[in-house]
């Protein structure tokens, strides 16, 4: 019966989110709410990679970019519909994640982190230089509004419902996957890859599935963004964008479903509050990360399992205090 209060809480939250457009008549607030949900989707998809299998991806903007450009190119040139493009952009993004993952996932954490950084830059530079496909620095304007049963989706409230549906679906799918064999394997790999392999977990296979799933949802987010903004250019997918998403995951907390949701909401609202000084947005994000590391290294709602080693060394005091055994070098 312990789950009952939680179910009630989620039901209340769900009803509240569904009725939000009725409560907020202001179009600007609806836009903020939509952007928050977009970042919730992005942060949650990054959390699938960083939080659950312990692969440190810092170039998540690349997958977001691939999804957005897939959607923009296919819809403006070939007239694909929004609803077809949502999964399709995700799939293309997941395909590209294989290109990155197959050579690099065999490596340990930090190498992977650096290669994702490079990958993100490659995608951005390719988008900028491949003018015949992506129109280069001019970007792609005029992405049409999507249709639903003959109704054109164009107001912020319409987009809000679409992204709300996607986020709900994403969280549900992720939750189901995490409780399956695959999710258990990810967590085992994150905690101790050698031990997981000894237990017969095929680490590489599961890490690739993990990366592809994360990239898939980032691609979906990119597709949504392309239709929501109706104009995209390479400027929207710089390393900074990847770092913003990373900041949301780190501040909210890795390794739980709730963490990135809280982080994305908190940081997006924070940067909206300081809208007048928009150029300070990333400064705020950076300081937020630093403060989080000092006050609560696992993030606001993070999984403390990630930092178990931290607690162990603190509690048992196995680590030799370096100060205690310090001797003056000149006396020897």
């Amino acid at each position, binding site marked *: 019966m312990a789950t009952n209060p939680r179910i009630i809480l989620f039901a209340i939250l769900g009803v509240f989110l569904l009725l939000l457009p009725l409560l907020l008549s202001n179009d600007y607030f609806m836009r903020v709410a939509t952007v928050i949900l977009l970042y919730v989707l992005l942060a949650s998809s990054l959390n699938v990679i960083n939080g659950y299998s312990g692969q*440190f991806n*810092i170039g998540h903007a690349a997958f977001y970019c691939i999804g957005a450009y897939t959607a923009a190119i296919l819809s403006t040139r070939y007239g694909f519909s929004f609803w077809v493009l949502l999964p399709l952009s995700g799939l293309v993004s997941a395909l590209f994640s294989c290109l990155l993952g197959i*050579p*690099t996932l065999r*490596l*340990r*954490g*930090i*190498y992977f*982190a*650096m*290669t994702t*950084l*490079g*990958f993100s*830059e*490659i995608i951005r*530079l*390719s988008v*900028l*230089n491949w003018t015949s496909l992506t129109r280069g620095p001019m970007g792609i304007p005029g992405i049409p509004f999507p249709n639903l049963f003959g109704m054109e989706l164009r107001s912020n409230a319409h987009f809000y419902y679409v992204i709300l549906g996607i986020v709900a679906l994403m969280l549900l799918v992720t939750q189901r996957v995490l409780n399956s064999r695959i999710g258990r394997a990810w967590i085992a790999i994150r905690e101790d890859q050698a031990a997981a392999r000894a237990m017969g977990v095929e680490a590489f296979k599961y890490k690739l599935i993990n990366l592809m799933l994360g990239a898939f949802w980032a691609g979906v987010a990119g597709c949504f963004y392309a239709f929501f903004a109706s104009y995209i250019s390479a400027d929207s997918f710089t*390393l*900074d964008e990847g*770092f913003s998403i*990373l*900041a949301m995951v*780190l501040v909210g907390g890795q390794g739980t479903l709730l963490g990135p949701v809280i982080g994305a909401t908190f940081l997006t609202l924070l940067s909206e509050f300081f809208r007048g000084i928009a*150029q*300070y*947005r*990333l*400064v705020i*994000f*950076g*300081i*937020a*990360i*630093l403060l*989080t*590391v*000092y006050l609560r*290294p696992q993030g606001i709602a993070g999984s403390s399992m*990630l*930092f*178990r*080693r*931290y607690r162990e*060394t*603190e509690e048992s005091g196995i*680590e*030799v205090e*370096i*100060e205690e*055994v*310090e*001797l*003056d*070098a000149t*006396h*020897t």
Partner: protein
Amino acid sequence: MFFLQQLLNGIAQGSIYALMAIGYSIILGVVGLVSFVHGEVIMIGAFAGFYVLTFLYSNVLVALLAGFVATWALGMFIEKICYKPFRNAAREVALIATIGLSITLRSSAQIVFGTQQKFMPDMFGNRFFAVGDIRIAYTQVFVMLVVVALCIALRQLFFRTRFGIALRAVAMDKKAAALLGVNVNRTILFGNALACSLGGISGVLLGMYYNAVHPLMGATMAMKAFTSTVFGGLTSTTGAAIGGLLLGIFENLGVAFLSSGYRDIIAFLILIVVLLIKPSGLLGRKGVEL
């Protein structure tokens, strides 16, 4: 002929990368952590050099010194903020702290210095001398001289001074070094500052080489320093220097055959290839784990 010219450009540029990579490998060895903030250190060094050159009308050596001093201080600051408090914590914590600091520094730099590219005054007036058909710019000669001089100085520091020996001891085993009377905290503090100031000098050299400095130059440069370090074998400073040189050469040869818009892609491709074929790098020992 064309090939030789590209080779020369590659060596000049590669020697700057080598300097960045040596700094990076010192951090890896002494602190024992990958630093995500090194790119921003390079950028701050470049800006320190830029402002000294433009506003104080001084010569290049003063600019190099300014880059050195500014990033030495920054290095000590980084150690206090990102490494010292988390020495006994899980490795991820300090890593995340360097990411946070890197975002803060870069976006602050964009506010303070502006988002536009700034043009560094050319101290050598674009002059060059020709050997056969190959043009050797004075800037290139100067860059190479500075790097070679610094490498010799570093070698003396590592093997002839007490501080250098302490640095190597700490890089090998912190606990054993502490038991033998090395002041580990101070060594890490100054070792990191030294590594950062090498990054700062290479930032000034980069600014002179391209005649331009930019607040966002850090990320790509960090990527190149990391690639060179991996290429050479992580904690080996000699390896890092060789890796940097090779990266510079490959880049220039690559750009000669591709569009220059793809210059920054080459470092990434080399990184992947090295990691696939020989993850321990050229001069790396096995078992270095990060």
